[in-house]
């Protein structure tokens, strides 16, 4: 278990590092998109390469950020029933989901995307738009995103087992929508809403 937890920590750190850095791809995408709009209208100059760069960047951000989002427990759930279970039952549901739902799905997608990516690398395929970008990096991003998701799912499953055995604390307890809201308000106002709203 120790080795597994060490592995899980390593994966978490990687996801975290990636999550903290891919946000700048969104920033770049915003600037490029605004730049595209302005250059098209003001200078009547537009380039498919720059247009495609917008979604390349955003695609990279959300694909590579998916593992980070999973780690932060931010993928949305329907919690009308889930929210009523004990934390222990929630752990079991999550463990079940990680192993039965997420791992097979992410692994299958990664397995399917590998030849899809290699195809594009070998043929050096270029986007069908005139002067578009080469295609393989986009496919590589899809592949990488699912590989990261597989790793993060493994890490989450390990952590869930550890939590069920009482070996570690819960880093991201489930929050109901009301709790999430209170935290958001706290962030905005810099005050503890819970203290006053008891």
């Amino acid at each position, binding site marked *: 278990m120790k080795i597994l937890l060490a592995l899980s920590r390593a994966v978490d750190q990687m996801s975290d590092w990636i999550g903290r850095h891919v946000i700048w791809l*969104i920033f770049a995408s915003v600037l490029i*998109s605004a730049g595209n*709009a302005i250059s098209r209208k003001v200078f009547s100059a537009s380039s498919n390469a720059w247009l495609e760069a917008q979604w390349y960047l955003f695609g990279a*951000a959300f694909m590579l950020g998916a593992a980070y989002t999973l780690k932060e427990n931010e993928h949305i759930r329907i919690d009308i029933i889930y929210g009523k279970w004990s934390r222990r039952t929630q752990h079991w549901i999550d463990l079940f989901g990680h192993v039965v739902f997420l791992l097979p799905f992410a692994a299958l997608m990664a397995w399917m995307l590998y030849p899809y990516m290699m195809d594009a690398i070998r043929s050096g395929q270029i986007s069908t738009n005139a002067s578009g970008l080469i295609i393989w990096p986009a*496919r590589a*991003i899809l592949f990488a995103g699912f590989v990261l998701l597989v790793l993060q799912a493994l890490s989450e499953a390990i952590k869930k087992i550890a939590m069920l055995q009482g070996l570690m604390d819960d880093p991201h307890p489930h929050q109901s*929508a009301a709790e999430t*809201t209170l935290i958001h308000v706290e962030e905005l106002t810099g005050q503890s809403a819970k203290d006053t709203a008891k």
Partner: protein
Amino acid sequence: MMELIAQNFAPIMFASLIAFLLLGYPVAFSLAANGLIFFGIGVWLAPFSEGTITLDWPLLFSMSQRLFGVMSNETLLAIPFFTFMGIVLERSGMAEDLLDTIGQLFGPIRGGLAFAVILVGALLAATTGVVAASVIAMGLISLPIMLRYGYDRRIATGVITASGTLAQIIPPSLVLIVLADQMGVSVGDMYRGALYPALILAGIYMGYVAMIAIFRPHLVPALPPDARTLGGGVTSLLVALAGAGAVGFAAHRAFYDAWGTNADVLGGLLGVVAVYIFALADRGFKLGLLSRLASQVIMVLIPPLALVFLVLGTIFIGLATPTEGGAMGAVGAMLMALAKRRLQMPLLRQALTSTLRLSSFVMFVLIGSRVFALTFYGVNGHIWVEHLLIAVPGGVYGFLTVVNIIIFILGFFIDFFEIAFIIIPLIAPVADKLGIDLIWLGVIIGMNLQTSFLTPPFGFALFYLRSVAARVPYLDRITGKNIEGIKDFRNLRGGCSVYLFASGDDCGCDRLSKDCYALSRRDHRPVHGGDHYSLFATFGRDKFGQLADFGRAQDHTLTAPI
């Protein structure tokens, strides 16, 4: 037995999807897993199905191409852009400045504060599009003032939550983008379709407040003179506005030949810019032509109006796609925050991180729903849904009623991204077959989904208001009750919309008048909070100043007795 299962595969799959989702595991992966598991079973059962199941393993490999399609979807790029823009504005203090100033402007008339809240709510909706931001700002700034000067608390809270949720339906709302994408119509058209209904809704709110001001004046009193810290001077503001109108109209006439209807937007822009430059000059050279109030109103109002033009104006006149509009709005919001010196590194990082998380979960719900759809269509699920919906008695109206009730009930439990990605693709083709204008349907559904922000357990607007109201002390010992204020608005909207729905029978022509009917059928369960509000409510100018610091100030002490 096998045959029975194979031939009823779509209903079984759909029922099990509901079970999968209710389990509470993240929606994106539950959807995908449901699709994959049933894909496997479907391939195995296909020989027994007499042709209803058309799945085979090679089909699964088309997922790669579909994933690529999700990633290269340019419409959905607008989601991160508008989200980022909203978060930056949320922390830029714009809402606080607006509420403060517009409240001063309208305060002296009965119901004025409520008008100000609705106006600012609509303006915030057209820029930030974030319900939380509007409701929190209003709850912190306007609510204490309204209650302090004797507003009925149900009206005060009702106005705030209702105005805050306008963000869901006034363009550029994310709801409309996702709906347009899933229905396969243009986002620009969806925005155009939603604009007037949304404005009518805001107008109805105002009409309601006006009626109360006339018939029940004690519920919405005017601000006493000593609360008007910016002084009077409405005349100079009116003169300035008339000047702006004249410039705008002249520009409109000048541009009309060359630009056609786009001259509206351009003329408006010129008028606004002219008055802003005038106000700047007046302030810079101390000409004293404008009163303090007038100058303040113009200075505060123009930047958000410019942002609205930058985003919506450019989209409406076709200068920019909604995605580009979002990007320019995001840049504009950053410039505004920069001008107010609110754009520091931690804020930027935080805004981008929130944007990343939201985009990631939304896009993965979409990916999951694509996997689900691959199987569901392969087992002719869409035909099953179509038969079900067409079998509804009452033709078009029966269909609309059923669809809206379903979406309305779903809105209690799940938020609109799931509804949009799972339900809309099933409904849209049927609606199209029945000859329903998809944009009109989209606006109706948008209005319907908007109410999910007013409805527990996802009644975010209520949560937000409650959490800020709880920290602001009031004179009255109000309990969770104050949230009931929404009831007033619900009843009002319900009544009017039923009338409007009944009076219009042509689906295509005046889509604007009918769309709020969906709102009529939502009952309201108040949020019960055992919140205890203690006394002391003194809010002066300095307090506003501190409140406006929102987002970085750590030291303001709203809860401290004064």
